[in-house]
């Protein structure tokens, strides 16, 4: 039972990391109808930036405090994501405005490759560590109920709190600020939003920037846990099924979908894996998404897709 709880927690934590990446997908899709295949590459790029800036900043400015260095590195990385967002809107999105979804999808695939190459050219391709002061010690809970206690990682709990904060901040942003309202208007109807004077181009830059910051936070948490390395991109591919499950247009869907996938992967690996030779994690998320696609394509919380004649 203790083992089950551990697996459950592990799955929840992994799932929460997926949710962070999936959030970026949902944000961009809601506001611009573009499915951003490059979200994973953005996570890697942001994480690389953060990792390298945090080692370079002390060298450039010569400060001692780790916290200060990290803070400056964060700001720099976020600024870099702004530049990336601006460039993507200017060079890619603006020219593909009226194309169908498939073309845009292919374009984001191209952006993925480009960001991959660029990130590693700018920042190097070794494995880098991110140290933002997250505790690394394991903790044993519920030692009275279960002998030996249930092992959880304090770092994961911190990460979950940070993710919750991020979602909270995003919700506030969308509901309370005027920019947030504008974003919601654009998500609803591009043309109507334009007709009341909202500048679509600016909105898209903002959206991609917010998605970029989400990618940065996700990258920091992933990177702190696993080290910043190339496999992050493929891990982000694992987040695609999350948005299918949760619904492409739903922020709560991204969270819940991520948790379901995380738990599902972990538990199926632990309990079903031994029967089929292991390695189920590779395809579990995708096959689950496939099942959803066949019976409920809009996911758990998404809007029904209607094809008009």
């Amino acid at each position, binding site marked *: 039972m203790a083992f089950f709880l551990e697996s459950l927690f592990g799955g929840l934590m992994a799932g929460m990391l997926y949710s962070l990446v999936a959030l970026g997908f949902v944000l961009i899709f809601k506001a611009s109808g573009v499915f951003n295949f490059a979200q994973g590459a953005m996570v890697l790029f942001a994480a690389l930036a953060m990792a390298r800036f945090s080692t370079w900043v002390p060298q450039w400015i010569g400060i001692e405090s780790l916290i200060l260095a990290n803070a400056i590195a964060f700001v720099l990385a976020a600024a870099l994501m702004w530049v990336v967002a601006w460039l993507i809107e200017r060079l890619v999105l603006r*020219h593909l405005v009226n194309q169908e979804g*498939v073309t845009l999808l292919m374009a984001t695939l*191209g952006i*993925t490759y480009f960001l991959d190459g660029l990130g590693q*050219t700018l920042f190097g391709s070794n494995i880098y560590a991110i140290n933002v002061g997250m505790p690394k010690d394991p903790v044993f809970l519920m030692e009275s109920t279960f002998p030996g206690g249930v092992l959880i990682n304090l770092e994961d709990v911190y990460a979950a709190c940070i993710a919750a904060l991020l979602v909270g901040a995003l919700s506030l942003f969308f509901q309370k600020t005027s920019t947030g309202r504008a974003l919601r208007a654009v998500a609803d109807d591009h043309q109507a939003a334009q007709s009341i004077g909202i500048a679509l181009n600016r909105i898209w830059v903002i959206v991609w920037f917010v998605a970029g910051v989400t990618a940065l936070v996700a990258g920091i948490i992933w990177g702190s846990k696993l080290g910043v390395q190339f496999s992050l991109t493929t891990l982000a591919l694992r987040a695609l099924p999350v948005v*299918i499950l949760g619904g492409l247009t739903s922020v709560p869907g991204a969270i819940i979908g991520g948790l379901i996938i995380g738990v599902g992967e972990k538990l199926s690996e632990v309990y079903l894996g031994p029967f089929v030779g292991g390695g189920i994690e590779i395809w579990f998320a*995708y096959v689950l998404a496939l099942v959803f*696609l066949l019976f409920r394509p809009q996911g758990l919380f998404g809007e029904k897709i209607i094809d008009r004649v």
Partner: protein
Amino acid sequence: MFYRENGQFKTSYRADQQIFPIDQDRWLVLALLAVVCLVVPALASDYLLRAILVPFLILALAAIGVNVLVGYCGQISMGSGAFMAMGAYMAYNSLVRVDGMPLIVALLIGGLCATVFGVLFGLPSLRVKGLYLAVATLAAQFFADWMFLRVKWFTNDSPSGSVSVSNLQLMGWSIDTPVEKYLFCLGFVVVFAWLAKNLVRSAIGREWMAIRDMDVAAAVIGIRPMYAKLTAFAVSSFIIGVAGGLWAFVHLGAWEPAAFGVERSFQLLFMIIIGGLGSIVGAFFGAAFIVLLPIFLNQSLPVLGALVGVSISTTGVAHAEAMVFGALIVWFLIVEPHGLGRLWALGKQKMRTWPFPH
């Protein structure tokens, strides 16, 4: 002046419907075939054959298969690598487990198994399209990745997980030298390109294109969407499966599942985007581009770097390659969504009026 249809009157529908209705085109293609079949094997170096022409031919074949599905029928597929893997492993198994299995039959069996796999994972296309279909095909890709890694039957219980074939025989001739490998692949490519071209200009091709352009209207004029989509998946995966078998047998010799991973799927997609969606000749252009670009970058980048005083390592070249690919994909999608194939057609159009401007 030279490339004109003046004077070439067609007096029957049959003549008008030929694959190459313009005389100059026909002569060009015949000359090309002569060069490709006779001159190249005689003159090309082993390196050229082994490292460039054979992979180019096999990838062009795979690209034709992917183009049938994505370019002609409009069904996005990111699982092409899995179909190649299916073709390769099933061809391997039929060669190894059945005594005296002829090589070509083994490859065709690989193709047929890929067809079954393709139709199965193509079923979601009856319910969803676009991005959602892309996710479904990715499911096929990752499932196949796992299956060929963990299910020992496919690798004939090989302890290392990788398999190999050697000593390929075709009716008593052994296919060893680069020239023989080149001609073997060439035979497959010519036959399959002809079959594919026939299909896309016939009724089924029009059904595919109708589904791509407007599937609601297609149903109204009596086209069966299910039949059209599933046949597209079937034909496409058959061709890709055979290409997979060729890739494994002729080009690689020994391989692991990683050779057919998701990067391969993306590579095939890039080929048809750059080469031109919905164009058989475009598949060749795309494959040539993808095969030649890394070699070009490998040679030129260090030189360019040296000129500027920057030393570029091999990983640096690999990263630059990724950047160039990515940028080119975006560029092509913006500037010429119909890829090099359209540029070729435009070029021919200009040739028609040359030396006059219009």
